[in-house]
C-alpha cells in the first residue's frame, strides 16, 4: 500500500557514520511529518493570536477565568500525551493515533465559528488541547522510527524547525485576514479549519502507518550497522500492555533520561516569566511584549537543524547540556541586568538556543534507548514527566516571586538549574546504553 516509502529505507538503510549522508538529509517521512506540523501550527497559532482580541473586542467577554482553566488544560494535555503514546504502541499504529489527535483538533476549529460564550468556548479549547496531547508522542515515535539512530538528532531538528516556522506564520496569516476583513474572526477560524484539514490530509496521504514499523525492522536487519535500540524481535511481535510500558522505567538509561528531564523541567522557568523578567530588566515598552516570543522562535527555527546535526556528531548529551548552559546564561544575564541595548537580543538568542539544543535532542536521545515496540510510550513518559515538572516549576516560581520578589526567585531557579544540570551531566555520562 505504501509504495512511496522507498525513501524511508533509503534513509534508513544507512551508511555507517551517518553524518556523511549529506545528500539524503532526512527521510521523506520526517519531511511529511514536518509539513503536517507546519500546516497544523499555522492553523492553531492563527487562533491563539486572535483569541484575546476576539474574546474582548468581539464577544465583549472578560476572559480572566481562562487563566485558572489554563493550568487544568496543561495538566490534562500532559496526561493525554501519556495515553496517546501508549495507545499508539498498543494498536501498533502510530499514524492512526496521531491522525486522531490531529483530526480532533481540526474538528474544533469550525466549532469556534459557532460557539459564542465562554463556557462552550472553554470546552472546545480543551478538546483542541486534548488533540494536541494525543498526537505528540505518536508523531515523535514516527519520526524516530523512520530515522536511523545516527541521524535522529537531525531528523528531530528538521521537524522542530518546520513546526516553529508554522508557529511564526500563523499569526501573520491571522492578522492579514483581519486586515482584509475587519472583525472577520469567523474567517480566521474558517481558514484555520482549512489549514487543519490540509494538515490531516497530508498526514493521511504521505505518512506511512503500520507498514513503517515492519519496514524499519527489515531495514535494520539488512543494515544492522548502527548501534540500534535493543529491539528483540520476539518481544516486538507480542502486543504491548501497560505493565510493559511502565516496565520501561527499569531500563537504566531511560530512567536516567526521565529523571534528568524532570529535574531540569523543575528548574526551567516558563517562557511567560522569562519574557516578563526581560521586559522589566531591559525596560522594554509594553507594546513590544507580544513580540518577545518571536525572538525566541526565530533563533529556535534557525538553529534547530544545526543543533540536531551537532547532536548526531558529538553526542546528544553534550548538546542537551549546552542548551541548558544557554538557559543558565540567559538567567545570569537577567539577574545581572547590564545596561546595554543588546540585553534583550542576547537573552532571546540564548533562550532560542536552549530550545534548539533540547526540544528535539531529548526525544532523539530517548528514541535511542527505547525498544521500537514501546517507542510511543517511552517518548510520552519523558514528555509527560517534563511537562508536569515544568508546570510545577511555574507554580513554585509564581509563589517564590510572591514571597521573595522576582530577582531572588530567579536566582533560586538558576542555582537549581546549575545543580540539576550538573547532576544530569553525571547521570547521563556515557557508559550505559548508547551515547
Amino acid at each position, binding site marked *: 500500500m505504501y*509504495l*512511496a516509502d522507498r525513501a524511508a529505507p533509503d534513509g534508513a538503510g544507512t551508511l555507517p557514520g551517518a553524518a556523511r549522508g549529506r545528500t539524503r538529509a532526512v527521510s521523506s517521512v520526517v519531511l511529511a511529518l514536518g509539513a503536517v506540523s507546519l500546516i497544523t501550527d499555522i492553523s492553531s497559532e492563527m487562533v491563539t493570536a486572535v483569541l*484575546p*482580541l476576539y474574546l*474582548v*473586542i*468581539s*464577544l*465583549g*467577554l*472578560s*476572559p*480572566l*477565568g*481562562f*487563566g*485558572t*482553566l*489554563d*493550568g487544568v488544560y*496543561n495538566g490534562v494535555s500532559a496526561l493525554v500525551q501519556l495515553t496517546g503514546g501508549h495507545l499508539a504502541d498498543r494498536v501498533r499504529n502510530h499514524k492512526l493515533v496521531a491522525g486522531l489527535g490531529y483530526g480532533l483538533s481540526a474538528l474544533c476549529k469550525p466549532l469556534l465559528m459557532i460557539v459564542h*460564550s*465562554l*463556557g462552550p468556548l472553554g470546552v472546545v479549547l480543551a478538546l483542541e488541547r486534548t488533540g494536541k496531547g494525543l498526537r505528540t508522542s505518536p508523531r515523535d515515535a514516527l519520526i524516530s522510527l523512520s530515522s536511523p539512530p545516527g541521524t535522529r538528532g537531525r531528523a528531530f531538528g528538521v521537524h522542530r524547525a518546520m513546526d516553529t516556522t508554522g508557529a*511564526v506564520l500563523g*499569526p*501573520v496569516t491571522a*492578522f492579514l*485576514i483581519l486586515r*482584509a*476583513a*475587519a*472583525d*472577520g474572526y*469567523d*474567517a480566521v477560524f*474558517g*481558514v484555520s479549519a*482549512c*489549514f487543519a*484539514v*490540509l494538515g490531516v*490530509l497530508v498526514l493521511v*496521504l*504521505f505518512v506511512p502507518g503500520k507498514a513503517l514499523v515492519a519496514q524499519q525492522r527489515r531495514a535494520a536487519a539488512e543494515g544492522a550497522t548502527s548501534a540500534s535500540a535493543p529491539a528483540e524481535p520476539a518481544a516486538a511481535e507480542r502486543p504491548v500492555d501497560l505493565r510493559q510500558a511502565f516496565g520501561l522505567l527499569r531500563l537504566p538509561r531511560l530512567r536516567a533520561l526521565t529523571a534528568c528531564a524532570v529535574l531540569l523541567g523543575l528548574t526551567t522557568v*516558563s*517562557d*511567560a516569566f522569562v519574557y*516578563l523578567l526581560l521586559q522589566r530588566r531591559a525596560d522594554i*515598552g*509594553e*507594546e513590544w*511584549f*507580544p513580540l518577545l*516570543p518571536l525572538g525566541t522562535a526565530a533563533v529556535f527555527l534557525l538553529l534547530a537543524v544545526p543543533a540536531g546535526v551537532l547532536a548526531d556528531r558529538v553526542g546528544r548529551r553534550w548538546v542537551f547540556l549546552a542548551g541548558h548552559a544557554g538557559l543558565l546564561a540567559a538567567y545570569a544575564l537577567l539577574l545581572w541586568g547590564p545596561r546595554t541595548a543588546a540585553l534583550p537580543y542576547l537573552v532571546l538568542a540564548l533562550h532560542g538556543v536552549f530550545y534548539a539544543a533540547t526540544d528535539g535532542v531529548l526525544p532523539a536521545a530517548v528514541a535511542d534507548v527505547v525498544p521500537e515496540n514501546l517507542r510511543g510510550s517511552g517518548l510520552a513518559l519523558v514528555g509527560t514527566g517534563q511537562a508536569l515538572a*515544568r508546570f510545577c516549576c*511555574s*507554580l513554585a516560581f*509564581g*509563589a517564590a516571586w510572591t514571597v521573595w520578589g522576582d530577582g531572588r526567585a530567579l536566582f533560586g531557579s538558576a542555582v537549581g538549574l546549575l545543580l540539576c544540570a550538573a547532576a544530569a551531566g553525571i547521570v547521563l555520562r556515557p557508559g550505559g546504553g548508547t551515547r
Partner: protein
Amino acid sequence: MTPKHRLLVLVVAVLLLAGVGTGFVLHAAYRAADKDKPRAGGPAVGAGPVTLTRTGQLAFVNSAPGPHRTEVAAVPAADPGGARTAADLKCARFYTASGTGVCLQTGLGVVSQTNRAVVLDKDLRVLRTFPLAGTPSRARVSPSGHLAAWTVFVGGESYGAAFFSTRTSIVDTRTWKILPNLEDFAITLDGRPYHAVDDNFWGVTFADDDDTFYATLGTAGRTYLVRGSVAHRSVTSLGVQNVECPSLSPDGTRIAFKKRVLHGASLWHEYVLDLRTLRQTPLAEHRSVDDQAAWIDNRTVAYALPKEGDTKSTDLWSVPADGSGAAHLLIPDASSPAPL
C-alpha cells in the same frame, strides 16, 4: 494509491480548501463593507464636531452600521434616540469628564495587535498617546478631568504559560506622570499587607478629590472592592467581595457594580452598593451585564448589553439606581456611555 494519485488528491484538496478559505475571507470582507453602509431604519448619524464640554449631551461609541461606525458620537441627553453627531475618532472604549477624554484604540500589527490609549482635550484633539500592553477593556476619567485610568487584558503573563491577566494604569493629565501598573501599589487586604504574583486590578473609578479611587482587585480566585489613594500609592480592601467594575455615583455615596452570580461562569447582575452602610441593592436589570456602568445622573446608571439576536453588537440600556422601575433602551447600537 500511487505517488501520482496521492499528489493529485493533494492538489485537488489544496485547491478546494483554498477556495473555501477564500470564500470565508471574502464573505467576512463583504460583511465588513456592509457594516460601513447605513441601514434603513437605523439612527441618523452625521459627521460633525463633538465638544466634550457641551452639557446636556451623552457621549458614546457609535456602533450603528454606516461610515461612522466605532466613532465617538454625541446625542442630546433629552432625546437619546435622536440624530447623532459623530466625530472623526475611532475608539474601542471611551470615557470623558470635565473636558478630558480618554480613548482606547486597537489596531493590527504584522504579528500582533497594537493598542494605544489617547488622552484628548475638549475638542477631541490628541494631547498624549500611550502604548498599551494588551487589549483595551475599561477606561475612566476623574470628575475633574485631571486623572485618567485604563485597564487592558494582557496575554501570556500569568502562571503556567497562561492566558490572561489585567494591567491597570493611571495618568495625571496635568503632569503626564503615569503610574503604569496598579499592582505596584501597596495592598492591604482584610487589614493585612498583601502581595501575590496573581494580583490583578481592573475597573478604576475616581472620587472628586483627584486622589481617591475604587477598583476591583482579583487574586487567588476571588475579587475584592478596594479603595485606593493615588498620592500614597496604596489600596485597601473594604471588606466587600464579588464587586467588579465599580462606578462611583456623582454624589460619591454609592457604587454601581457587576456581581458574579454564578461561580466560574460569565454571568453578572448589576447592583448598587451604599458606601456608608455597605448595603447592596439589586437593580431592575435581569440580564447579565458585563460592563463598567456609568452614572447618567444621581438616580440612573447606563451600561452596554449585547444586542438581541446579535452578540457582536451592543445597545445602551439604563435603569434606576435604587432598584425600582425597569431597564429601558437608552441608545441602540452604542457602547461606552458618558454624560457630558
